[in-house]
């Protein structure tokens, strides 16, 4: 029996090799898990930063839409970039047409979709909807 003699010729020396192998495996799994957890944590932190900044920009855009309430200009579709905390975001504002507007209404009601994304190639970080009214006197005739 060659194998037992090699591994168990000495009660201590053979165990160290097995131990070392198991230890390497454990270390490998642990390192992978730890790196995975750290990457996940970093991703969460990154997403948190992105979402928080995108929400700030979207909130600003919502407030901007509100200021148009009595403005002579009816806001339309637009794409622009905005920077918060050194991060640049692309903001897309889309006016969604509505068919149920009464023609003689003194207020024009428009639905808007506002999307904020980190970079143009990425999907939207956040997307919001808002219904906003505008003075019909100031709005351009349809």
């Amino acid at each position, binding site marked *: 029996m060659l194998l037992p003699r090699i591994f168990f010729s000495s*009660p*201590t*020396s053979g*165990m*160290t090799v097995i*131990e*070392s192998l*198991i*230890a390497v495996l*454990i*270390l490998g*799994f*642990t*390192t992978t*898990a*730890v790196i995975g*957890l*750290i990457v*996940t*944590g*970093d991703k*969460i*932190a990154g*997403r*948190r*930063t992105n*979402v*928080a900044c*995108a*929400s700030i920009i*979207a*909130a600003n855009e*919502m407030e901007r839409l*509100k200021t148009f*309430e009595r403005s002579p200009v009816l806001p339309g579709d637009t794409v622009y970039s905005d920077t918060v905390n050194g991060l640049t975001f692309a903001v897309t504002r889309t006016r*969604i047409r*509505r*068919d*149920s507007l*009464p023609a*003689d*209404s*003194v*207020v024009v*009601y428009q*639905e808007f979709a506002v999307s904020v994304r980190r970079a143009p190639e990425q999907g939207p970080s*956040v997307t*919001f*909807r*808002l*219904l*906003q*009214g505008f*003075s019909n006197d100031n709005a351009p005739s349809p």
Partner: protein
Amino acid sequence: MNIRGNGGAVLPTVLIFAVFALIVASVYTAGQLTIAKPSLRGPASLQALCNARSGIWKGLELLSKKPSDTLAKINTLDSLFNKKLFGRPTAAIASDSFSGLVPDDTPLAVQPFSSDSFGDCAVSLTFLTCYKVLVSQGRFRDIIKSAKGLLGGSIYHSPDSVCFLTTGSAPEGGGRIEGTTVFPAPEAALKPVSASKPRPEPVNKKQSADQLATGELAKLVAYYRSKLGAKLDTTIPVAPLLIQNSDQAAGIPEVVNGSLLINGSFTTIAWKEKRRIFVLGDVQITGKASIEDVEFVTSGEFKCFDDARLFNVSVFCPKRLVIGDRASFSGTALTLSSLLVYKSGRIENKSIIVAYGENKGLPAAPAKTPRPQLPVSVFISQDANVDAVIVACGNPGGIQTDKNTVVKGILWAQGAICHQGTLYGVLRANELVDLPTLKARAKTSGLPAAPAVQPRNSMSGSIRRLPNVTEYFMPFFLGRQIIARWEEG
């Protein structure tokens, strides 16, 4: 057992470090997740707020909706098409009925967007004297946000036009008007009145839009009358309730079964509370009393004197509203009788006061000496200082301002205005009369009407431009409805 041997020494060490590393990494990730959670809820919170805001606009849209044709426009491509068969009935309810919003605080579920994946909202309507109040609760996932919109009115006036008259010609009588006067004069009268006075403008289509919505006003009065009626039916009148300090003021019940006397002559009274109080009698506030945010619905008179200070209050009273002796009032008020501001009484902070005279006139065959009727329903006299929109409508629906009075804002009268003081802002009346004419009318009211003569406008006071006149809102039943104020939470 060889405890000094190398065997078994590596594994425990590695395991200890591995477990420690896993714990540290897990704590780091869990920490990041915990920190991120509020931020990741932020967008949901913002969408819920957007839903609440959208609900206010949707409510306004529902209120301004006119009865449509029987066959409504049906869009089968709409994501909400046939929604009520399979999902929660939301927009379907609101769009099927004429308005769906009635002033009874009952929330109406509405879908403000064309897609239902962004949540929804519940809208309710109530009155706050001169405002309609739309309350919207926006809902997205498990987050609820609320918004409140106070609907006021807006009337058209160009920046230069300060005086609008619906009858007669250009005012005479020595008054001073710094701005343009608008009146429905024939073409001959469109010539400038004098070299110093600017050329009057003809009444155009937009200016005719500032009509009084009597139906809306009647609904408002009926609303408060029904609320008062319900309280009157269930209570027995008792002795007046006297309040002499702040603690007593905080304990005033929702329904006061008699008159309410708030007397700050001995100790200063400070009372700030956002609630509605029904008083089945008169309300009298005297002395150093400061009252804030309270809504009074009374069945009698409302009087404030001395150094009483009322801030952001709402008042409904079917009888007289009196502000005198240095008292100051700020907020909104609707009286079904008359308004009297005198002896340095002040109305502040762009308030809105409506005097809706409900005098039905005298009987057709009265006694030999008919009782004279008040010629106007709003009296501003004796160094009164007003920063408000004053509306006098109904019968008699007129306003009288004495000399040494200053008014900032808008004077709107369905009847005549006798203006002798100083007005910074806009005046709109059926006609302008001088004091002798007004007195003569007071004496002859109730007598057979004199032969009709061409009305002649006369004014001895002055009207000047107010640059920020657009910041003054009318009551919701005058002009077109707009959102005067927002509150979000």
